[in-house]
């Protein structure tokens, strides 16, 4: 079968490879591109296997054995570590990562599969993976009504959509006017920078935006850090607001299996205008150029359809 393999930094090749192994084989219909895929392609990543390795972790398709439509979640928690026992599967210490959506077929443990609600198209179902992380981040936040989201990329706009659906007042800050316009179209305020908010989500993942998010928190406020900084990044935080304004900073990583099901239900219920976040649909061969191009302009997720 055809698959996209990483051979090293910015070295991606689409090749014929042996059929995948796994408990269940899924025929891929939609694999959306995430910012983490770009990081994996540019810099490598700790969860990747040894080169050459497959990647792609927002994957929807059809089970070869039963014909059931499924979302392939990107991880299965071990169920035994302290985090799993504390019902925090998202920070499991020994997860099995399930990567390889940028291929015609992917092998996965049955525990990674989530049934796609009837009528929900495969591209929308693939977006349940990042949407589950957004749901998790919203739950890590407080119930404050006035919310700022720093970063108007797909994650920022997903957060805004969920918060708006929950009746909150949302401001999305982004330096790109196209992304501010997308935020406005959702019903949020689009601004170049955040003012002060009781709850702030950071959805960029850079030390300077972490600091900006802390500075945008009102006294007694909560900052949820959804954008992870690269490994080895040291973040220097502004001292005065943290102490004298009693801020709380909460990391938010990944999602638990129940949140993936909730995300699929939310998509089926129309809570996310997923079509507005969908970029062009491309064959596997065009994945390298799509990875190189991402980052600027409107927030849209390119979709790989390996059947093309």
């Amino acid at each position, binding site marked *: 079968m055809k698959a996209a393999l990483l051979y090293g930094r910015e070295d991606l090749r689409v090749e014929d490879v042996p059929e995948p192994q796994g408990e269940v084989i899924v025929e891929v219909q939609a694999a959306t591109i995430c910012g983490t895929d770009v990081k994996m392609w540019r810099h490598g990543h700790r969860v990747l296997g040894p080169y050459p390795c497959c990647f792609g972790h927002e994957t929807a398709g059809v089970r070869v054995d039963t014909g059931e439509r499924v979302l392939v979640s990107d991880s299965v928690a071990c169920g035994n570590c302290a985090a799993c026992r504390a019902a925090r599967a998202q920070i499991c210490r020994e997860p099995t990562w399930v990567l390889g959506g940028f291929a015609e077929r992917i092998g996965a443990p049955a525990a990674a599969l989530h049934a796609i609600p009837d009528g929900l198209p495969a591209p929308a179902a693939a977006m349940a993976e990042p949407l589950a992380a957004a749901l998790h981040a919203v739950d890590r936040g407080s119930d404050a009504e006035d919310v700022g989201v720093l970063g108007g990329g797909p994650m920022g706009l997903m957060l805004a959509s969920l918060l708006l659906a929950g009746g909150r007042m949302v401001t999305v800050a982004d330096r790109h006017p196209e992304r501010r316009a997308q935020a406005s179209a959702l019903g949020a305020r689009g601004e170049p920078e955040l003012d002060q908010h009781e709850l702030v989500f950071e959805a960029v993942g850079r030390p300077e935006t972490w600091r900006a998010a802390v500075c945008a928190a009102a006294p*007694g406020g909560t900052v949820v850090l959804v954008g992870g900084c690269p490994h080895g990044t040291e973040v220097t935080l502004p*001292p005065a607001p*943290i*102490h*004298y304004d009693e801020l709380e900073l909460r*990391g938010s990583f990944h999602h638990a299996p129940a949140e993936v099901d909730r995300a699929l239900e939310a998509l089926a219920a129309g809570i996310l205008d997923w079509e507005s976040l969908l970029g062009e649909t491309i064959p596997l061969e065009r994945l390298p150029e799509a990875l190189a191009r991402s980052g600027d302009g409107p927030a849209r997720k390119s979709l790989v359809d390996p059947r093309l």
Partner: protein
Amino acid sequence: MRVARSFGADDVRIEEFDDPEPGPGEVVCDILACGVCASDVTDWYVAAKLPAVLGHEPTGIVRTVGEGVDNVAVGDRVAIHHHTPCGECRRCRRGHETMCERFRATRLDPGGFAERVRLVPELSSELLVLPDGVDPVEATLIEPLACVLRAQERSNLRAGDSLLVVGAGVNGLLSIAAAHARGVDAVWVREPRPDRLAHALETGAERHGNELVDVAIVCTPKPDAIAAAAEAVAPGGTVCLYAPPAPDAPPRLDGAALFLRELTLTASYSAGPGDMRASLELIAGGEVDAASLISHRLPLEETAAALNLQRQGEAIKAVVIP
């Protein structure tokens, strides 16, 4: 009356002020004792307030009451809080009463290092009468213990959890005692000074090695100690910055770890009225051994020396007794 007024870190003068008189709803107390807080000797923090009569951990005896005061009577021995929230605003309702606009606007007149203090009605109404048998010098620890209790609440520290206390000065020692009272399962301590470490071990903490903990309370502003504490927190755990970081030494954290391990970084400022009441109960009930923490007792004339003992780390807790 005599007061000890600070003009600089090394310039504390004994001055004569007019005796305060209570207005309607106000109370004037003779100060029995006032503890020296680390913030009184955090020179970058204090500089903006000077000249001032410092000291905000006082106990006293009610000397005169203004018209309409009915919660205390002349002769009552009381613990005094120096800030009080309105209890009604949005921040108060959301549990951030120390962020209330009124909180920092209320203050002692003139301060705790004085023979007498005037309390505005908002502070008078929050006076806590000391039960018989509670020593007024030991009761100066009610305010710092209340701050510790607030930090433990903000850190969501629960019975059965494990706690790392970084720094075994008076706040660290109070944290250890309060954690035991709360039923915390394991209390670990990090402290470079052997004498302080020994004191912490005597109070039932264990020396920290490489154990992962649910909560770390960092009672030092040192960036390296904060970063090391964050490394000791288990996935999903909480780091509480108890000591305010200095403007020129901001905290530095591993940006990947905070995210990947879903840590919560929290801070706690001062204490609310509920924290003060809970603190009084712990001290009155003997659950926190206040006597062992009061290392130095000095008269008002030696306020400068008391401040220096605290600044140089010689005192666990120095108390000024006018």
